[in-house]
């Protein structure tokens, strides 16, 4: 049985979890994939977007996913985040078999456990910053106050602004606030800095790191920017729908220290 080992996260809140090393006891993986495969059928051409990927996210760690465009990164996150269905293989969230879940259970799973951040923010333009966050806190089990979530990403002053009145970086931070407000176990970020300039990108990444440090949230970040790998605990590189490489950083750098 393949049971990838998890390194203990270095983050604050999660440091209480049993510390481990490669040799020591394995940390409980929070989300794991087993031979996860996705084949897109368009007409009579089959595109294998993901080919039997095995991977585990551990509690409290930051994972950066790299790889050329079309290598299957987004497909992977969408599958483990319950946005899409695998063609074969399994994905588990704790004991919950995501690949066997009904549509309703997947919705429930997303609502309670996962935070998503996308390249294009996907804020609701008709709701203000705090209302966008409240959208999630209204349905979450143990949410934080919208103001608190916004404060964590440094936006305590712009609560009543509509998305159209915010800059790209600010919009993305609202999206992060919205994702963390329900205190998710894991955040899946698909190119969160893709549409931002480097300075704004750093602010956004710092917001994510803070969330990880203060709440112990597991964070997965897809990026095109190889330099960003340095902020991660682990770096996974996709190629042709497979994980081609996996590396562990001994030390994480803060985003502002990363040269872009």
């Amino acid at each position, binding site marked *: 049985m393949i049971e990838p080992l998890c390194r203990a996260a270095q983050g604050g809140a999660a440091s209480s979890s049993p510390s481990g090393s490669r040799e020591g006891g394995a940390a409980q993986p929070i989300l794991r994939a087993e031979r996860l495969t996705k084949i897109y059928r368009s007409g009579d051409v089959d595109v294998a977007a993901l080919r039997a990927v095995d991977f585990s996210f551990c509690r409290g760690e930051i994972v950066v996913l790299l790889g050329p465009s079309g290598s299957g990164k*987004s497909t992977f996150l*969408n599958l483990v985040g319950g*946005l*899409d269905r695998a063609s074969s293989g399994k994905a588990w969230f704790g004991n919950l078999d995501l690949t066997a879940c009904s*549509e*309703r259970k997947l*919705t*429930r*799973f*997303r*609502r*309670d456990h*996962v935070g*998503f951040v*996308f390249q*294009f923010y*996907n*804020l*609701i*333009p*008709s*709701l*203000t910053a705090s*209302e*966008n966050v*409240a*959208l*999630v806190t*209204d*349905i979450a089990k143990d949410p934080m106050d919208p103001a608190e979530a916004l404060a964590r990403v440094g936006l305590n002053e712009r609560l*009543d602004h*509509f*998305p*159209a*009145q915010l800059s790209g970086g600010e*919009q993305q931070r609202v999206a992060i606030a*919205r994702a963390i407000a329900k205190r998710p176990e894991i955040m899946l970020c698909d190119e969160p800095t893709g549409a931002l300039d480097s300075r704004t990108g750093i602010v956004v990444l710092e917001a994510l790191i803070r969330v990880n440090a203060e709440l112990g949230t597991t964070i997965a970040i897809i990026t095109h920017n190889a330099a960003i790998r340095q902020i991660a605990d682990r770096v996974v590189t996709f190629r042709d729908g497979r994980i081609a490489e996996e590396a562990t950083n001994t030390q994480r750098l803060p985003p502002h220290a990363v040269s872009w």
Partner: protein
Amino acid sequence: MSALDRKLRRDVCRLWVQITAISLVMACGVATIILALGAYRSLSETRSAFYDRYRFATAFAGLNRAPLSLREPILQIPGVRSVELRIVKPFIIDIEGMSEPGTGIAVSIPDTQPAVNRLYLRSGRWPDSGRAGEVAVLESFALAHGLQPGDRFSVLLNGKRQTLTLTAIVLSPEYVYAIGPGDMVPDPRRFAVIFMPRSAMAAVHDMEGAFNDIALRLQPGVLLNDVSMALDAILKPYGGTGTIDRSQQTSHAFLDNELMQLRAMAAVVPPIFLLLSAFLVNMVLTRLIALEREQIGLMKAVGYGSIAIGWHFTKLTLVIAVLGILIGFLFGNVLGRGMTRLYASFYSFPFLVFSDSMDLYAVAGAFSVSAALAGSVRAIVGVLRLTPAVAMLPPQPVGYRSFLGRGVTRHISQLNLMAIRHLLRWPLRAAMTAFGTSLAVGLLITALFTYDSVAFMIDTVFFRTERQDATVMLSEAAGPGALSSLRRLPGVMRAEPYRSTLVVLRRDHRARRLSITSIAVNADLFRPLDKKMNVTIIPPVGLLISERVAALLELKSGDMVEVELLDFGGRRVSVSVSAVIESYVGLAVFMSPEALDRLIGDGPRISGARLALDVAQLPQFYHAVKATPGIGAIALQRVSHAHFRETIENNIFIMTSVYVALAVIITFGVVYNTARIHLSERARELASLRVLGFSRSEASGVLLTEIIVLIAIAQPVGWLLGTGFAWSVVRGFESDLFRIPFVIERATYAKSSLIVVTVAAISALIVRRRVDRLDLVRVLKTRE
């Protein structure tokens, strides 16, 4: 095919449901133009051609009896072109296969075509005055009884049984709409018009060398007023009851009324549909262009001119318009033909074909294309203005403003807030959607209220006012003794006499020609109702006048009005108005018998009686009536009410079906398109909601909330509109011939709303299925 045209073709395929929905709304506009204008033209052109070729009289006059020698003096009146001196008398029909006695009008004819009111010979030959009993018969009656030239039937002329031979089946411009006494719709079975050689007619009625009716044609450009003074002066010694023009002639007045309604329909209904389709074109095109901003920018960047791109979108508009026009042509033609067929069953013309000339289609087409283009103008101007650099920039999130204070928004869920703010962001569009939907509600109320109105009319007229089973009219007014012979007819359980006399009511410069009818104080069979629908007590003196008469002459109770007694040499007396009553048929004016007899001053007289009959003895009663001399005409209220119901229900059913179809199309067109546009604008937001963990129904709930709000707003507005439409229909129908009551039951509002809400729900659910199938991943990956 150019790349742009290929794009156009694919756009059309992709958007076909929306395009069809808009085209259908437009088709309703086109169809109603063709229907209303086409039917109007068919009817008015056919009528004027018939009138012209068959020399329909411009004026009529009735009198007691005058010598034929008056012809010369009448022709001498300046302005008179031709004149026909006739004998016109009612008679009783006794025809095989019909137990009820029918009523007919016999009109004398010369040996050849008369100078005025010529007859159209459908079949057979002109009756020969040399052979006894030959007559021409109006086609509707002949058809109803399957009579052919050569067939014989019997009638009671002046109380004498005559066996007549039908030699010709004819049509007359005077009897295009042939309606019998006491009937509310034509019943060709029980109403006949026969045309009899003058010698035979004179012999039966002791009218040798005399006449009692004039039909005349004036020279072109001559006004009746200039002629009627001289004519009335000539006829006065002979019991002339005054000259009337066409507008007071029954058949002509009914046709006029119909034409007026068609014109009103042509003016009101099509513009509504075209306005709505313009709105829909605008909405869909604006969205399409917003979606294709980048493509447009790219095309401009690679060198396509603004005009070429603008033309590309104009072509899409034209596709919608052309589709709408084609469907509209088809339905307009079908409906127009149907309408004309319906007319042909009421109005007898030598031929009545649907006049679908090319220009009609051209007009309808031009209006529709204009409406579509008007709807597209703003969107297309936007395309022309778009610079490539701007087009290629990612669109900013749509800016919203907070219309409501925080205190309010706190209490509204975020999802509902999304819905409300989105609606308020495009208030004009929201208003148009609600307006379009409310029009559908209004249209349904307009159609369905006729059931209420007619039911109410049937109740008030048939069950509360005219409760008699039959009304017999004596050939001549008689002393009270005549009543006892009517009472002795078999099956008569109750007989209430009445007297009726022709008058002109005059107040200042306003005047109306009508009949005053007497009603006994203790009358039970005929009981006029006051405006509160209570049975009126007949006042010992003074007139009871119907609301219509009160309005026409500007009279109210207590006023004095001048009564010119036409049957009595035009003597004028002043009478007070005692009360204003409710009446839906004709220009009703009533009086107590004593007061009327006093007014006329020739002692007690009766014109006829209203009868309550024993159903078990109907055959004997019918039989006896046919054998009783002195009965000039008979109205069978029970029979005509049943016939009225059947006819009107059939007509209303046809009309309602058409209106329901129109309302369904409007609702679907408006709601489906609005929902699709809302979905298109918000696919990304709804997908975001799904990603955030909202369920399918919560996500689509946002969209549905918007639609529900709009549909809800549309209901009261629609009720208001419908009430207004119904009111204008009531006003439009109002004429001296009849009125329809303005009654809308609550159930009608409810039914109208129910139909619209159901169609709206179906349209919205079709769109909801698309929300359920949203591909989250793909939607979120795209930029907009």
